[in-house]
């Protein structure tokens, strides 16, 4: 097992390197003058020159990349052009929010998806099944930004059941340890913060997780149906075992394996969807930082965010693979 993990970690290095090259080269081919943009409407030509020199934009590309790589290894991604604060710091301010949102969405997707899929498999070819599968089809096809807008408008705006975005009630302060209000609230015993955060997370988590929930539901249903039809299940039933035992002990574990695969495939969608969801619900996360920086040509931040985002994605996939290997020993020996 350890050997498998080690092997996969080593394979990560060239991938991360490739990502850094792609991002760096990409951001430096951009048309349009970053220095000009920073100097703004009221900047003079002298300002533009000064800024360009200060940012080292007049050095050759490979020199800039070298400096960038050396810094990146130490965790120094440079300075944000917009705010003049370290990029690493900007990312660390935003990252906990995205992690919290993604975990919430994943929990919703897996929980609701499994429940729906297994339920549909339990009562196949009934109205419940048909209804569930239609819901799944719609869920998979809805663009995540539209889902978000609708949820915000209907449940936040018209019905007023949930707040209109952001992570906490206005003016609420909490002691920041991890940056995730839910965790920090629990750690410091501040239940008001926990309650407020939970209320604010519901709509974004549902919006973000809806597509994944649909995919997982569909997968869970089909694998469950397949497994329920296998020989060993018939044997279990013939032996006289109670239905919950048949389903719970025998069928479930095998049915879950492909679901784990699907979850791995969903992670990329979740991280991408986070950009759109955070924009709609005004959550101060990595996705919002990414889009603000791209639009503002704040390329050090874009570099940092993309590398961190891709890195997390790659690591998360690794985790999923390890989980899969744990559940299915046949994989380890490939």
């Amino acid at each position, binding site marked *: 097992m350890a050997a498998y993990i080690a092997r996969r970690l080593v394979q990560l290095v060239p991938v991360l390197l490739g990502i850094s090259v792609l991002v760096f080269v990409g951001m430096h081919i951009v*048309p*349009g*003058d*970053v220095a*000009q*943009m*920073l*100097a*703004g*409407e*009221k*900047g*003079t*030509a*002298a*300002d533009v020159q*000064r*800024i360009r020199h*200060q*940012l080292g934009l007049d050095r050759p590309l490979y020199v800039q990349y070298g400096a960038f790589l050396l810094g990146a290894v130490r965790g120094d991604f440079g*300075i944000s*052009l*917009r*705010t*003049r*604060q370290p990029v690493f710091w*900007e990312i660390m*301010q*935003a990252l906990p929010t995205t992690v919290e949102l993604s975990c919430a969405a994943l929990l919703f997707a897996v929980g609701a998806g499994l429940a729906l899929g297994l339920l549909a498999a339990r009562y196949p070819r009934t109205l419940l099944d048909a209804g569930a599968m239609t819901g799944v089809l719609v869920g998979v096809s809805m663009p995540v930004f539209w889902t978000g807008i609708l949820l*915000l*408008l209907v449940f*936040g*705006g018209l019905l*007023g059941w949930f*707040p*209109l*975005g*952001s*992570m906490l009630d*206005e*003016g609420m*302060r909490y002691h920041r340890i991890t940056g995730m209000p839910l965790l920090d609230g629990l750690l410091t015993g501040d239940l008001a913060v926990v309650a407020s955060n939970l209320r604010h997370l519901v709509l974004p988590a549902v919006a973000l997780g809806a597509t994944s929930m649909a995919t997982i539901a569909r997968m869970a249903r089909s694998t469950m149906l397949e497994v329920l039809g296998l020989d060993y299940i018939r044997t279990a039933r013939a032996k006289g075992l109670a239905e919950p035992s048949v389903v719970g002990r025998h069928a479930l574990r095998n049915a879950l394996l492909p679901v784990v695969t699907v979850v791995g495939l969903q992670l990329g969608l979740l991280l991408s969807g986070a950009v759109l969801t955070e*924009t*709609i619900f*005004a959550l*101060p996360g990595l996705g*919002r*930082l990414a889009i*603000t920086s791209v*639009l503002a*040509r704040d390329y050090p931040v874009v570099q940092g965010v993309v590398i961190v985002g891709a890195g997390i994605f790659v690591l998360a996939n690794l985790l999923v693979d390890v989980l899969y290997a744990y559940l299915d020993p046949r994989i380890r020996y490939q």
Partner: protein
Amino acid sequence: MRVRLLVGILIACLVPVGFWASAGAQAPKTLIIAIGADQTGLDPQTVQNNESGFVMSTIFDSLVSYKLGTSIPAPGLAESWTISRDGRVYTFKLRHGVSFHDGTPMNAHTVAEDLDRAINPSNPCYVLARKGVDTYDDFTFGSVKEGNVAKMEVVDDYTLRFTLPKPNAPFLSSLAMVWQGIMSPTATKKYNCDASQHPVGTGPFKFVEAVRNDHITVEANPAYWGGRPKVDRIIFQIVPESATRMLKLERNEVQILADVPPSDYARVTGNPQLRLYTQPGLTILYVAMSNDRGPFVDPRVRQAMNYAVDKEAINKGLYGGATTASQGIPPVLWGYNPAVKPYPYDPAKAKSLLQAAGYPNGFTTEMMVYANPRGYNPVGGAKLGEAVQGYLAKVGVNVKITQYEWGAYLNKIRHTEYEGFAICGWSGDNGDPDNFLGDLFEWDEAANHWRINNCSRHHNPAFDRLIRQGREVTDQAKRTQIYMEANRILHDDAPGIFINHTNQVRAARASVRGFVLNPLQMFFHMERVSLE
């Protein structure tokens, strides 16, 4: 046994009630203002964007301030000043008994220490030596590089003197800008020349915290020289989406909206719990034409373009009733010439002018636009471009629109000799007419080049002479005459299609009292605002 249990439970229930009651008695009065984007730093010398300015205007004072609701200079940290006869020496007498939020006393020494980093290249915290800062220092004090920077001297503990190389009448207005707010030099030293994340000023509110992309909190400064603030805290909440901001205002989750799109005006005015605040803005919006290239070299063509577009319809439909422009400065600014009227909508006249200029069948040309909204253009360049394109097509002028991202756009209009149309505009920085007419329409004789923000590359020697004169004369009445004449010339020259001056519009709960708009759009004088 059971009785004791019951009593215990009763007491346990009372405890939270007790807390709630005491908390209610001490709950701080919080004013929440919704803004559209996050600040990028809170050091007045190093940032220039609106959102940062909003917050800084509550934390800092400048030497000079603006009279409530106007752009006319009034005493600030300096309670009085004198100007020499030749208009070059400004002597300021500072207030006594004022301190920065960190306890540092405010006097000529500390103010000079802070301003020194703006004008002295050998100062270790020299602003222009820091990476990528946006600053108004050249604008206010003159350029170190070009050798025409003001000289500053401390005359005594409470007297500060500036000597300018040439008379520069807008100097007072420039000093009043939020971008010349005075930061405590102790803070600048403490944070290694960059106190932008830990701002310390003399203003009515003290900085508390800033959570990235979420909110900024400031709390009242009870010792403020202008009077104790009537609210205990102000929170600037970042809400990027205008529909959400509106909903929050309606639910009293925020009390003031920093900007309101025209499509929401009716919603505010129709709601008795809300109030709409409007003031003519210190802005101008126009569609520049390349005055020295293409068909636009002929002034008749430029005037024809002005007749071809129905500005009233655009201003009412797209901009919710913005004032139609007729000249280079907005009506709220002194120097405006009320005798000059906007070009009326007259497509027939436009066509006949085009014919006289030799374009009976119109012509084809290009237009550059940007997408994002600007302070002087709340609906964004692309939308205005579309609207104008529609009207021009009707007189035979076919326009192809290309959209550029903002940085690339700025580069194109300032450094390339583009031919065609471009959306240009301006928000006034200091409330002085030279800031509009000079920056936007002057040709720099000495350098024989258009001034960097002269989008249309307008060049009229008579106009340029007037502008130079306006900077040298310090008598207010004389300057007014000069600028009114300049505006008349500009109207006839028609360097661009004059569109409008956007209104500054904010919305607030009816429970907010004492809130007054000012042309600079900053949150000045927030110590006077109270919540019922």
